[in-house]
């Protein structure tokens, strides 16, 4: 795999040569190389607007059959990242590699066979004017897979897989509950048997009692079809339960990345630590912890100089204000962190 088209990215070539060769032996299902997206704000017909770096230089490798969690607060760029992976927006810079092959320039249909989404809101993700069978069968029709009869059979089979009764096929989304709708969305994502599923907050619009059903289903499907997930969520308990590795994003950049044990057991970035502290587990008597962050939420179109987190960081020092820390594997344990103090 010498032809691997990773361009040298100044800031975040994380892996020292020995561990890099180890992980090169197995091509990751999904690899992001220096992916960036900048938006132009406030531009009009004749004038140019300001630029906003929604995602800056994100590099990630997700091995086949694993779950990569992506956590961060609203506006940190995780949804923009998901849209780039799905081909909904073109990256300003960087590459997405599926099975080691860059998808830039590949057409949307080819991409769709490998990567499918599950969106957050099961009320907005299903067209209210279509029947469930049409919604789940749409991917097959668009891609011209099978005869109409085969498509119907495949749709019915997929409804079985996600635990929906077959007569749901003739219903409209408005006749289903939130949990059932999310099962329909999952069925639509799986009907073409993709390798990779981008789950963008798939349970945050659901009630807790239904959330558990959907999480169980996602775990079952992963085992059954050998799926690779990018699991985007703000619910850290859910992320900890589901993922193999976690990446933490802040203001468009990954600030820490490692295995579940590394991130949840010994977080090294102060932002990761604050996130973990502010997750309220149902343990009475502990009270609400003081996480020591100001709520000076930064403006993504005008990110602070140096470390983007320094205005809220309780430990910020002079270096943090001037120099942006690099995302590096400092200890050589395949975990990366971007903090001067780590």
């Amino acid at each position, binding site marked *: 795999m010498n032809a691997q088209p990773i361009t040298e990215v100044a800031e975040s070539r994380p892996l020292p040569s020995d561990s890099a060769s180890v992980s090169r032996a197995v091509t990751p299902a999904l690899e992001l190389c220096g992916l960036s997206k900048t938006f132009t704000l406030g531009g009009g017909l004749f004038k140019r607007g300001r630029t906003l770096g929604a995602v800056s230089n994100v590099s990630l490798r997700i091995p086949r059959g694993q779950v990569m969690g992506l956590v961060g607060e609203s506006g940190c760029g995780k949804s923009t990242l998901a849209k780039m992976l799905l081909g909904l927006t073109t990256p300003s810079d960087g590459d997405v590699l599926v099975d080691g092959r860059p998808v830039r320039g590949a057409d949307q249909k080819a991409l769709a066979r490998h990567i499918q989404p599950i969106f957050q809101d099961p009320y907005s993700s299903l067209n209210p004017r279509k029947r469930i069978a049409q919604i789940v069968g749409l991917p097959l029709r668009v891609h011209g897979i099978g005869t109409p009869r085969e498509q119907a059979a495949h749709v019915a089979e997929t409804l079985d897989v996600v635990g929906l009764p077959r007569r749901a096929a003739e219903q409209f989304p408005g006749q289903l509950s939130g949990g059932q709708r999310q099962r329909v969305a999952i069925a639509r994502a799986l009907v073409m048997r993709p390798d990779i599923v981008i789950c963008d907050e798939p349970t945050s619009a659901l009630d807790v009692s239904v959330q558990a059903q959907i999480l169980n289903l996602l*775990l079952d499907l992963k085992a059954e079809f050998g799926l690779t997930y990018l699991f985007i969520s703000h619910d850290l308990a859910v992320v900890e*339960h589901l993922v193999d590795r976690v990446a933490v994003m802040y203001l468009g950049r990954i600030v820490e990345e490692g295995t579940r044990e590394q991130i949840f057991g010994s977080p090294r970035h102060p932002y990761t630590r*604050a996130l973990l502290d502010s997750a309220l587990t149902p343990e009475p008597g502990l009270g609400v912890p003081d996480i020591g962050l100001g709520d000076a939420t930064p403006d993504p179109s005008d990110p602070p100089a140096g470390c983007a987190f320094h205005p809220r960081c309780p430990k910020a020092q002079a270096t943090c204000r001037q120099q942006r820390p690099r995302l590096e594997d400092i200890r050589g344990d395949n975990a990366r962190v971007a903090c001067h103090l780590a």
Partner: protein
Amino acid sequence: MPLLEVNNLRVDLPVEAGTLHAVRGIDFHVERGEMLCLVGESGCGKSMTSLALMGLLPRKARLTADRLQFDGIDLTMLSERRRSDLRGARMSMIFQEPMTALNPAYTLGNQLCEGLIRHRGVSRQEARERAIYLLERVGISAAKDRLNQYPHQLSGGLRQRVMIAMALMCEPDLIIADEPTTALDVTIQAQILRLLRELQQEFGTAVIFITHDLGVVARIADRVAVMYAGEVIESAPTPALYANPAHPYTRGLLSCIPAPGKTPPGSRLQAIPGVVPSLVGHVEGCAFRNRCPQAQPTCERTPPLMSLSGDHRARCHYADRPVPAPRPPETIS
């Protein structure tokens, strides 16, 4: 005497398919200075309950109650005018989405002071001083300048802090907070909750905190009332509820969220099967029985509110006794 006493509160809403029994005869009380959490999933009636208490129900809704008493005042008998006075001066509300609760056309100063001037008849200058004091107390810097700002100039977290300050302006006895942190990021949520809890204890204000998040409840509540399908199915002091949940629904809720350190990662979670029943039309028997892992033929009858130890109550036939062993299937049919 408790600050707020609610007995057999019902809220009915006419809908196209019949009558929606949004709240089906709930009982609870709030003591002065305590934080009561109403917890439940969407459609359980918790928001309708809060609107009923505030007198903000939609016009077509019908409210009945055996007793709805706030500090000795019968709320069901009040005129709209007296109700509105009470609402501003002694009860106030914090909404989920501060952007829609704040009027974008007025400055923060205007909105903060308005209630105090109207209900307490204080001068504008006094009102401004209290507004600045409270803004500082909720952790907003440069409070004086903020008074001239408009809501859109603040971030979501700051807006919710302003809402808290506004709720405290008239020194109310009761604040009803309806999912005030659901729209916020986790780090901001923790800060707002901490602030709300501190101020509540300092000012001795009673708070009814409405949420769906059992994690939040555990950390801030003095007492909890769990709602399901328009009923309070269990109420208890917070430690007792988490230590010995008596209703199968409460147990189900607690076991279906992954608990770090206890639930093995990647293991199957204990989901509650099925969906919440519709509350349109007459509901007979225990509303949870179709999802309950230990439902019995007895559950066709409406369960009474069983009193367990102390202040711990649950609406389940088997709250205080073991569930009978399952009989062989042939005798059931």
